[in-house]
């Protein structure tokens, strides 16, 4: 697969490490959320046949974490964003 890196352009997916569902960005606050919320965060995933937002790490590149929107059936990639931007857009900060 080819991932169109927002900064570096098309790069072979072989350079990346796959992590999984981009909801891993939505980590609850450990001082407020309880075991239930963390259990949900750590274990529960959708497994869609179709569009999926997922985290890829450009390990053999610029070390950016990316959110890649990929169709799991066709492998078509429709969007690639810097995970840091996605996290900030979700209100994550410090």
């Amino acid at each position, binding site marked *: *697969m080819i991932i169109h890196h927002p900064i570096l352009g098309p790069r072979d997916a072989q350079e990346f490490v796959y992590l999984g569902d981009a909801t891993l960005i939505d980590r609850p606050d450990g*001082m407020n959320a*309880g*075991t239930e919320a963390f259990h949900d965060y750590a274990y529960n995933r959708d497994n869609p046949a179709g569009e999926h937002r997922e*985290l890829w*790490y450009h390990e053999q590149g610029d070390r950016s*974490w990316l959110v890649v929107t990929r169709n799991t059936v066709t492998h078509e990639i429709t969007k690639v964003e810097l995970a840091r931007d996605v*996290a900030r857009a979700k209100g994550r*900060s410090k």
Partner: protein
Amino acid sequence: MNQSHRIPGGQIDRTKVLRFTLDGVPYWGHPGDTLASALLANGVRLMGRSFKYHRPRGPLSAGSEEPNALVELRSGGRQEPNTRATVAELLDGLEAKSQNRWPSLRFDALAINDRLNAFFAAGFYYKTFMWPKSFWEKLYEPIIRRAAGLGSVSRQEDPDGYDKGFLHCDLLVIGAGPAGLMAALTAGRAGARVIVADEDFAFGGRLNAESFAVAGGAGADWSAGVVAELATLPNVRLMARTTVLGAFDHGIYSAVERVSDHVAVPAVGKPRQVLWRIYSGRAILAGGATERPIAFENNDRPGIMLAGALRAYANRWGVAVGERVAVFVNNDDGLRTASDLQAKGVDVVAVIDSREGGELLPGIRHLRGAEVIDTSGRLGLKAITVRQSDGRTEEIRVDALGVSGGWNPNVNIHSHHRSRPVWDNTISAFVPGADGPPGLLVAGAAAGVMSTHGALRTGRDAALAALESLGRKAAAIDLPEAEDAPVRITPLWHVAHGKGRAWIDQQNDVTVKDIKLAQQENFTSVEHLKRYTTLGMATDQGKTGNVIGLAVMAELTGRTIPETGTTIYRPPYTPVAMGALAGRSRGREFKPYRLTPSHHWAAEQGAVFVEVGNWLRTQWVPRADETEWRQSVDREVLATRRSVGICDVTTLGKIDIQGTDAGAFLDRVYANTFSTLPVGKCRYGLMLREDGIVFDDGTTARMGEHEYVMTTTTANAVTVFRHLEFCRQCLWPDLDVQLISTTEAWAQFSVAGPNARRLLAKIVDQDISDAAFPYMGAGNVTVCGGLRARLFRISFSGELAFEIAVPTRYGDALLREMLARGAEFDPVVYGTEALGVMRIEKGHVAGGELNGQSTALNMGLGKMVSRKKDSIGMVLSQREGLTDPDGYRLVGVKPVDPLGKLTAGSHFLEIGAASVVANDGGWLTSKVYSPHIGSDIALGYLKAGDRKIGSRMRAVNLVGGTDTEIEIVSPHFFDPDGERLRG
């Protein structure tokens, strides 16, 4: 022997002679020949035995679709089984051997299988070798393996190298026939970066095999002219002997280039083959079409081949396969074979045309509405039996028969993303479907456009469309004049006659009867049909047999062919050598090595090295009088504990963490707290995964207000760094933290033992007394008169110990300097074994305990998990299941009898308890011999182990057959109060 069947013409160089052997018999041919064409020129039709029935077989085709003519090439380490003689380029001195026969090709003992064919129908193995079950492994499987199968491997190491590489292009053209060449010319002239790959050693595709004109001259001359022009274009790369194997995502294709297969021995340093990964903007599949046979009784004799192959041998290689030739067709294209051979002066005795109407060939006996119903000739075709339209049968003496059942477009690569080909009634064949790989266009016969004019036109147009979609402009070049004959075919899949066997898949010996049997037993879906009969398996993947097989199934089930469908097409298009897939990664070059700064010193001493990931670490350093590894390890441990030992610990991961929020960041990634750590101190850190399991550990030092140095285990250096980047970018994107690995930048040595400080005082320029550099101190120092260095007072061994780091280039010299200046302390350099002994004596966790299943509580480190702050894994580490007071706890283990042996992996059992899972109390994670204790010792996870200290149990290893009485002790075997390391 004379080249009895060589006729004039063809694209071979008759001025040169190439000598070769088949089964030791010498023959000769010319450059431009394949092994098959040369053998046929020498009058050899018999080239192999079939897979199951050991039937005599000759080539069916003249290309990579060949099911029969599989041979072993070369000998010794270069022996290569299952090579298709039809594509093996002839070379001087080539040794070829036939396969699957014993004792000889002409007389094969297992040809008895052919007589016993009634037993060997489809499903025979499934039904026969079911019971008794115990017979399978010892009896049935070895027999079947010996009887069946293809070539053999040499079992010697392949002396040749293989390579891999990466290519980039705007347009990849797959196949260099008329369509591919026209596409390449169009795109090449427009300046696009073009790669043209063709599996053949000669470009031109079918133009080399046909007699008709292109642009008023021979087709082969036209293609040679185009190739000559393409060769002058710097933006075009011509890759002959290169098979595109598969289509992968987003324009990536794989291809294997046979760089040296056509020479006896590769040139020095040159690979035999190169596996290429090709990145393309667009690709055009111009892979042509494959002719299919018609099934009739005994249609597999040597001398019976595809009509197109028969004329390819005549036109391209100057070979008349037979002296008396007939042709059996259901379409017009097959008639070309009759006219081409006749023009070459070969005696064409009959054309058997299953159709009633159609054009008559002048001067040839043309039997219309007729069928071949049987053949004879044990080792090669002698006669055919023809049933004429009025039902009369006639035997016609021939030694070659060309069969044409129509042509199948080579849709394979277009179907590699599960696109299903669609049925085209006008040519009675499957053509590429609509949902092929994005960016892949199809042209020429691969697209079902069967005329030369059509190939040229669609090749050009596909290139124009591809370039336009890439935003490039290209000029439409004029098409050369070429034939544009329509396809006229009336499908005939198999001849209904008698009870004999009519072959569909010659490679797997699948006959019409087998298809019928599969249908009777309800294996009617194509995927079931394939598995039940083996139709379409093995090296040729059914390139000639699949479509007629499923057409017969369609007939039997009353479905249409498109309703019956095709099996899934998968890469590779043709078989690939394992060596090509491995590339350079084999033997000692399987992976790169990482060498430590002390490697050269250690190698000089004759050290034994161990692979830890890619690192080569010193395992122990034997002395001349030591004959057994334990002697060296015990000595290293005792010398360290007695005086001082030095160990290269460079392999531990080192991560530089800076920024104004570095402390806050560490508080979140470590279970314990680091923001409160004073500058100039270090602390042991425990890192959890979000699920509460321990991920990694190590010491982290605060080198400045906003500057920390983290160490990780050797094994997790990469994954910890990745995890930290995840935390930094995805979880807390606004923290001011910057990370960089410094693992390789610093050579780091542990200096441990009662004399560690005295030795280092001779090296370090600053005061390192206990007052100036207390336990867990850390800081920048200089050594040997001013070289920048880092010093950490940390201990893995339990001794007074420091870790000293200098820029890597000085590491070797520092080690030598420490040994020289500290000579009075008789320092020892110890390896990973002694390191392991000392850490287990001290009760420190490492690989066996950091096993990805264990919690801080299991390790006796539960109190380290701070609940005053949020950190990765904190919440889930407190889950009920992970905080069970009866859960596993780290304990020490000693055998009651000091001579008793312990084995890592043994299980804890109560004395007297049965050795069953229900009584399992946990397991021993790490074991060493402790020269300090004087016996084996071990660490282990024992249920409620913290409450069992002092009790006696058993360590049982049912695999190794050991059962040892043990005492459960504290994991801190050595200096439990830590007086030595604070000394």
